């Protein structure tokens, strides 16, 4: 059971003066329970790739399968779509209901569940994203703060209990503490729901911390697809396509250039901290 993309190509505005390619021959399998980070520049095709995963946009050629369901099949698409929860960039822009509770329930209700089930799932979603039900349920979503709005929007997707959760820049536009909270929420969600998470980001540090696998995109193609460790061991490739490096790697390189002997595969902040403590005889 997995999301499979086979030879997927996508071109925007085909046949007009504004035609531009977004994806070129993408082959990709995302397994259950993975945490996949997708990084790349603006316009590298990462958002387009993500939107293909639940069949909201269709490839110009190639096929997308969700747990074996062909997403080009109009009748079966809905079933596949229910398995893939999609959180778009700035998801708080999609809030529209009178109360937070109704908004979170919108997606679940569209699944045709009984009222008791809907209520249970909505309460669970409130809890999972860290919003107090009693405090927020009856509020208008437009009264919330930026971070709370984003949580509410996230809860609307969570309540549908997706098997695969696709997040497009979930931390964009939040302050550092908001970013940290959302990141923690996502990690918590993954454990609680046992779903796969596909997270698009251009922050190397966020991707490095959470992912079990990283996909690097450039100009509509997948250029690297490996574990974080392998990816960052070949950091020269990232620099080639002008992507930034995670802080830890920058620090490790800097220390090395000043003659401090740091092992080649150490680039997590915690690892570096320990190594340095050892050198200094502090622990």
């Amino acid at each position, binding site marked *: 059971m997995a999301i499979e993309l086979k030879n997927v190509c996508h071109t925007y505005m085909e046949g007009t003066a504004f035609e531009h390619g977004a994806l070129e021959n993408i082959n990709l399998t995302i397994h259950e329970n993975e945490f996949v980070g997708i990084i790349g520049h603006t316009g590298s095709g990462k958002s387009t790739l993500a939107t293909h995963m639940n069949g909201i946009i269709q490839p110009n050629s190639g096929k997308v399968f969700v747990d074996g369901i062909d997403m080009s099949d109009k009748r079966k698409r809905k079933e596949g779509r229910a398995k893939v929860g*999609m959180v778009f960039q700035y998801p708080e*822009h999609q809030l529209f209901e009178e109360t937070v509770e109704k908004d979170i329930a919108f997606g679940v209700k569209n699944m045709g569940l009984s009222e008791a089930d809907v209520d249970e799932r909505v309460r669970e979603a409130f809890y999972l994203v860290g919003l107090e039900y009693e405090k927020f349920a009856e509020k208008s979503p437009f009264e919330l703060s930026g971070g709370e709005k984003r949580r509410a929007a996230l809860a609307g997707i969570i309540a549908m209990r997706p098997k695969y959760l696709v997040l497009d820049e979930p931390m964009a536009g939040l302050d550092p503490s908001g970013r940290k909270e959302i990141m923690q929420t996502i990690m918590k969600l993954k454990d609680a729901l046992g779903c796969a998470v596909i997270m698009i980001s251009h922050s190397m540090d966020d991707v490095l911390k959470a992912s079990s696998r990283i996909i690097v995109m450039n100009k509509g193609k997948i250029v690297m697809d490996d574990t974080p460790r392998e990816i960052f061991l070949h950091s020269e490739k990232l620099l080639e396509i002008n992507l930034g490096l995670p802080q830890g790697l920058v620090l490790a390189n800097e220390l090395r250039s000043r003659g401090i002997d740091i092992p080649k595969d150490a680039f997590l902040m915690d690892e570096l901290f320990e190594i340095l403590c050892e050198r200094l005889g502090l622990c």
Partner: protein
Amino acid sequence: MLKDITLGRYFPGDSVVHRLDPRTKILLTIAYMIIIFVVDELWLFAPIAAFMYLAVLAAQIPIRYILHSLRPLRWILLLMFVLNIFMVKEGKPLVDWWIIYITDEAILRALFIIARLVLLIAGTSLMTLTTTPIALTDAIESLMKPLKLVKFPVHELAMMMTIALRFIPTLLDETDRIMKAQLARGADFETGGLIKRAKSMIPILIPLFISAFKRADELAYAMDSRCYHGGIGRTRMKVMKYSSIDIYAALTMVIFCAGILLIR
């Protein structure tokens, strides 16, 4: 999805037609429209169509773009054609069977109306295809300047048009994004009766209005903080200037119109 709508439909290029001053283009298009309405015989549309074709060639625009702009009107064109065929009773009858009564005059008139409309649309779409919407509003403002004498708010109107045009693609993008987001939450815009479908628009319209109001507010602040205070004393970044090609284009049009009027 919505991205495939080509509104404003500017076709980027650097042809002679593109380089014409937008004011010239508007005036020439008006002249062209007048000549189409003055012509009262079907065969006279042939030289006009040829002229139009040459203009499209000069603009280096694929002819299918012009044809594409006719597509939204295909039903209206068909209706006009059918109505004319059945309503006109003068002339020699060609078909006279049961309630169907068609004369040669009717067919000629139907063709005449269609030719007139098609040429009219082709001409105006050539103008919008070769001119950016912003250049067009600038030109309209400049051409309507005399109306200021009768206290008509020319500048304000042009600014409103510019802003509206500027935000069409932005709001289309926004609508596209919101639609996708609600689709991902299982919203269904395609099935059900009229009322259900109208209701299914609510999850799109509310976020769209909210963001449009927010944008309007932000734009107002942005304009205010740049000391915008209306048209008086305001200079332009791009000053429109007539050049020699405008004179040639105008001359060509004058000769062409005179020619058509003479043969008539």
